[in-house]
């Protein structure tokens, strides 16, 4: 055996030992029940597919081994890219091949899956098989995020495993710097505080970009998720910008025959939508130059590199930006706030007539085509046991059970994250998941070329949004959702 082979084998053994030890550290109440329940499924292997994310990796590295240890049921979860996961899951469920017993369901694709009856009704399945109802598992434990995975009958079709909100991050070291504060006050006549309105946000962004340009430093006033060839830019616009101007659900009106144009009752090309896009593009223009190639990942990287004073960042990145010194230069200098809104919009949102931003996340569901429904039901409940949640939240900043907020260690992390978890608990209701449409990717891809063309300046905002609204209606007509 060569030295390198020995070293590799040792590292692998150490990693496996560490992983095993980690899984063993977690104590599960009612371990006997799990052993007895698992005994009925001797020799069964549960197969799953999920996107490779920190919460999913925790499932494969820690939760699945613990489940195997207790029940004897083998678990094999593929972690792969989002595209691969989506493609594999859909093809399996469409063809009914039964390869997968659990699939990852991102919040915005659950409606597509429900519309095709791809998923097992977990609530009903557990009622029918009360002997499989695990002690410690209860749908009442979940945060309200679980509601996104309920069918029209109110039953649960997926067990939430991750939940994040897209928040407004700002650099506390810059916002608290006396010299900067004085310069800002001198220029604007007001105190430098996190923005509450778009006007304030733009003022701060312009100030910082100009201030650091004069200093010769590479720091800009805002981030922008404005890739000119990737859906990330579309999502930033429809999920994070439009709602803060008071245009919801992508500007598509489901009550008006899925109208997108103003002419038919939609808002995709409304004056407000045009104002929102114009504002966002003006922010993009004073953001770091890499913004036109930035997806959600690069925006987080830009912020973590200390190249932006403020920005809208997906919550799943907030933890490492705020606390991981190996990846972030702004550790300890991150503040969290609600996204800025247009005047009057917050009142509308607080009255329950809108939302301020995106409530992102995912769940594990059981395909109807699975051949191991019952074993998969056990695994799905295992994922939602309170005993696992603290370690899971610390490993990846996700919370899906209300009880997790009470953990002391989670509260400590919350402090390090500038109050991100508290915001999710207290203001989570102001955020909302993607609209309940089964045609997200279809409409997005139909209008995306026009949207990218607006971003490059080849098409004007007004003209482009008019074209997008028409194209969206055309696609919805082709798909059969729009009847006129």
């Amino acid at each position, binding site marked *: 055996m060569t030295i390198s082979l020995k070293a590799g084998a040792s590292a692998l053994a150490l990693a496996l030992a560490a992983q095993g030890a980690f899984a063993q550290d977690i104590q599960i109440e009612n371990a006997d029940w799990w052993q007895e329940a698992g005994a009925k499924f001797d020799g069964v292997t549960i197969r799953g597919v999920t996107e490779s994310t920190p919460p999913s990796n925790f499932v494969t590295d820690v939760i699945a081994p613990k489940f195997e240890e207790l029940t004897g049921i083998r678990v094999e979860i593929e972690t792969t890219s989002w595209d691969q996961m989506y493609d594999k899951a*859909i093809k399996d469920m469409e063809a009914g091949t039964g390869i997968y017993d659990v699939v990852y369901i991102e919040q915005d694709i659950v409606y597509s899956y429900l519309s095709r009856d791809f998923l097992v009704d977990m609530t009903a399945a557990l009622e029918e098989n009360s002997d499989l109802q695990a002690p410690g598992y209860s749908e009442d434990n979940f945060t309200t995020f679980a509601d996104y995975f309920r069918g029209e009958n109110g039953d649960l079709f997926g067990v939430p495993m991750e939940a994040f909100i897209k928040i407004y991050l700002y650099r506390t070291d810059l916002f608290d710097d006396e010299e900067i504060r004085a310069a800002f006050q001198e220029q604007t006549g007001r105190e430098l505080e996190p923005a509450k309105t778009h006007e304030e946000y733009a003022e701060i962004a312009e100030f910082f970009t100009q201030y650091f340009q004069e200093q010769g430093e590479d720091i800009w006033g805002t981030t922008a998720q404005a890739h*000119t*060839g*990737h859906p990330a830019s579309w999502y930033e616009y429809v999920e994070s910008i439009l709602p803060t101007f008071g245009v919801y659900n992508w500007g598509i009106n489901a009550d008006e025959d899925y109208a997108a144009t103003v002419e038919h009752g939609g808002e995709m090309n409304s004056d407000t939508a045009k104002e929102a896009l114009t504002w966002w593009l003006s922010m993009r223009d004073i953001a770091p*130059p890499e913004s036109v190639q930035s997806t959600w990942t690069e925006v987080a990287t830009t912020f973590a590199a200390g190249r932006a004073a403020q920005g809208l960042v997906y919550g799943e990145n907030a933890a490492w930006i705020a606390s991981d010194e190996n990846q972030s230069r702004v550790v300890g200098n991150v503040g969290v706030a609600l996204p800025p809104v247009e005047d009057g919009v917050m009142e509308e949102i607080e009255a329950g007539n809108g939302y301020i931003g995106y409530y992102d996340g995912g769940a594990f569901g059981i395909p109807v085509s699975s051949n191991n429904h019952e074993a998969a039901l056990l695994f799905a409940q295992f994922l939602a046991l309170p005993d696992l949640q603290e370690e899971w939240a610390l490993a990846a900043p996700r919370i899906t059970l209300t009880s997790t907020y009470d953990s002391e260690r989670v509260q400590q992390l919350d402090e390090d994250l500038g109050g991100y978890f508290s915001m999710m608990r207290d203001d989570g209701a102001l955020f909302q998941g993607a609209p309940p449409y*089964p045609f997200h990717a*279809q409409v997005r*891809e139909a209008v995306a070329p026009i949207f*990218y063309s607006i971003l*490059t300046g080849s098409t004007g905002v007004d003209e482009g949004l008019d074209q997008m609204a028409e194209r969206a209606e055309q696609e919805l007509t082709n798909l059969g959702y729009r009847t006129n």
Partner: protein
Amino acid sequence: MQSNKLGWFLLAPTLVVLFFFGVVPFLYVVWLAFHQWNPFAVDPTIIYNGAENFRRLVFDQAFLSSLGVTLAFTFFAVTTQVILGYVLAQAFMRDFPGKAIFRTIHTLPLIMAPIIVGSIWKLMTTPSIGIIPHYLDQWFGYDLNIGQSAIAAFTITVIMDVWHWTPLVTLTLIAALVSLPPDPFEQAQIDGANRRQIFWHITLPMISPAILATVFIRLMDALRTVDEVLMLTGGGPGSATRYLGVHIFREVFPRTNYGYGSAVSVIVLYLTIVVCWLLFVGLIAPRNKKA
């Protein structure tokens, strides 16, 4: 007779695999091209719609734009690869210090997966962290941003493809050059032919089958390029690098427009065959006729 049977017997496993993993999926795509099928439509069933998908293609601006940029990409990438590949092959025919090391380094891109190539070029071209924009700015004051400039993005995708695939052309042409008999070259030198005459009248005609084979291979690859470009630009900015492969990917995977996407795939296959045939007719057939 015996050896004939043995031959078929030995070929059988390959033929079976080819049939199920090559012929059957191909026939399925052709069949789907004549149907409307989007599993997330109100009616998710597969509906026969005759040649409607092909009729739609003719008026689809996104497809036509994609076709235009793909042909331009293919022309620039393949032409550059062949010229550069030939020059490098000739260079490698001579001895120079460090030749072995240089040849190895030059061949390394070939063994890289396209998705990795796309990632590397993305890192190298991203403003603020990329080495290419950094030095272009420092040396020439040129602000390279492939997320903003359509021409820059197109050019970089061509350069990336040239970087990745020129070694293949070089290796093929080295093999062709090595196998050339010395006699015609010696005779030409005795007759007083200069280097240019030798190249045009002896070298080029003798290695043209190898060049043509390489061009065919590269042409087919370039017309269906996906991974590298998807990783580097995502097809942007706008639709500047939305080549046919990327267009098909977007239609079939995220948009789940299986029928229409299949029709585009069939047309791309047809286009590839036509372009290869035109090349064959233009370059090989006249030579055969003369002979």
